[in-house]
């Protein structure tokens, strides 16, 4: 299901823990953990991307340029994509709730494109990367706070 794909890293971890799944040990060590331990997520999967690379980058309010502090996530994603040449991904662009629906759809698309452009500049093949915007209509964080908005201004790379 798509919704499980777009689930934030935090929520995914919480869910795995709650389920008591046998695969939680490696996943629970979080982003940046070394791949290749015995019980880790399937290599090249969304779970692998989330746990070992990071699936999303965040944007400033009303901005669609990839922040310097977010660029390394996309560079790691490009490297990860080069390890799994059969994988295609879709970059989903999102906005926070403090805008109108139509403008935020366009803004989300611009963010998805910006993230894709960095992936391509970092060596990923553009043909493997599609983009889509959900505007403000699929928030990752459900609150109406600065913290929630910051989590929702994002581009998420989703394995297809």
């Amino acid at each position, binding site marked *: 299901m798509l919704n499980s794909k*777009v689930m934030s890293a935090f929520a995914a971890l919480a869910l795995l823990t709650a389920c008591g799944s046998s695969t939680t040990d490696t996943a629970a060590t979080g982003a940046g953990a070394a791949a290749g331990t015995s019980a880790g997520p399937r290599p090249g999967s969304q779970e692998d991307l989330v746990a070992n690379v990071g699936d999303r980058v965040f944007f400033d309010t009303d901005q669609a340029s990839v922040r310097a502090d977010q660029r390394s996530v996309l560079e790691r994603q490009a490297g990860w994509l080069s390890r799994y040449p059969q994988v295609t991904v879709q970059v989903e662009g999102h906005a926070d709730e403090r805008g109108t629906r139509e403008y935020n759809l366009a803004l989300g698309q611009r963010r998805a*494109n910006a993230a894709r452009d960095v992936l391509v500049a970092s060596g990923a093949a553009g043909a493997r990367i599609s983009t889509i915007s959900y505007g403000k209509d699929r928030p990752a964080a*459900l609150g109406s706070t600065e913290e929630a908005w910051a989590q929702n201004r994002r581009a998420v790379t989703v394995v297809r």
Partner: protein
Amino acid sequence: MTWKDEAAIRRLSRRAALFGGAALGLPLIGGLPAFAQGGPSSVVDITKARTDPIPIAVPNFAGNSGEAQRVGQNIAGVVLNNLRNSGLFRPVDRAAYIQTAEAAAQTPRFQDWRVIGAQALTTGRAELSGDRLRVEFRLWDVLPEAQIQGTAFTAPAANWRRIAHLISDVIYERLLGEKGYFDTRVVYVAETGPRDRRTRRLAIMDQDGENQRYLTDGSAAALTPRFHPNAQQIAFMSYARGEPRVYLFNLDSGRQEVLGTFAGMTLSPRFSPDGRSVVLSSTRGNDANIYVVDLGSRRERQLTSGGGLDVSPCFSPDGSQIVFNSDRGGDQQIYVMDAGGGGIRRISFGRGRYATPVWSPRGDLIAFTRISGGQFAIGVMRPDGSGERILSEGWGMEGPTFAPNGRVMMYFRETPARDARGGGYSARLSSIDIAGFNERQIVTPTDASDPAWSPLLA
């Protein structure tokens, strides 16, 4: 309801055009005697910021049988509700009525209505023969004791609500001097489920919230529906096939088709006033540009280019201009251009960002969403940007749509989440008079967003 029912409704509205023509101010040959001619006698100036509502009595309509009496009661109830909700009429308390509805339907005893403060009175009679419903209705001016209007409507009995709305429009027009908006529908997005996984379906209802129906099944998110000027077609955005695109939805057949051959996302569609084309926005690279698609030839023509995110275009009612929303100048503002794409000029200069411009059917105003200091607002300005007025302010309100007479707007309004799990979040429709009073929530079965008002159906 099924698609067959939808087709039946459409067929009715074409027939309604026939009897509607006989209704509006024209004497009905062979129908009711002695129609008062001449202009409305109690016209109130409603261009003022606020008027005193007209006190009106709407006793139950009489009937030629027990069942017809019930229909007559229902019709009077719908009429009463319409008039009250407009904010421009004040129904007199029915407990104060002296003359019975049955007697008034024969001959009004005007002093009985005058003494309880009614300036206008409606009386009526419903006659059922088989499935046919005939409703006679009269509108009276109580002070001069004169009939203002007498009209008869005939329709299948199941369509009694439409007759009630048509009667409401006659009353509105005769007493206020401009067309009403009661015989209309609203298409909107019905939202269900948790906020991060919402199901968004197109839904349609009468303007008073009755006759709720879903148009799409929710398998793909549907957003931003807008009516064709003939009210039979809807343009909207759908995530069907995994690609957000503008679609056309035919209310007669229930069929959907994608509009255009754009490579990127298409969004924010609106029909031209002549119904022959759709103006929309399509994303490409870093930009979103405005295009017009001819519905006959399906030819696409680009109207803006390279200026940032140009979205939410809307034609002026004469078709000569297009208002739209763009961040070409740095942040979101409202711009107007010629319908061919030239002569772009910014019209919004107030504090904050401006979005979702819609042109009033009267042509004299542009409604908008303003976002300023973390607050949202719905307002209106003249097409040259002057005379800005904020009608309502609050969290998450956007997307105004005009009733066909330009007098009332609907929009949607979100309630912010009060906790990190999204508790307390809701989205609801509201309406407001363009003078800024009579703000009311429209009751819908589910959360609701993106309302679009139909033209008059008859």
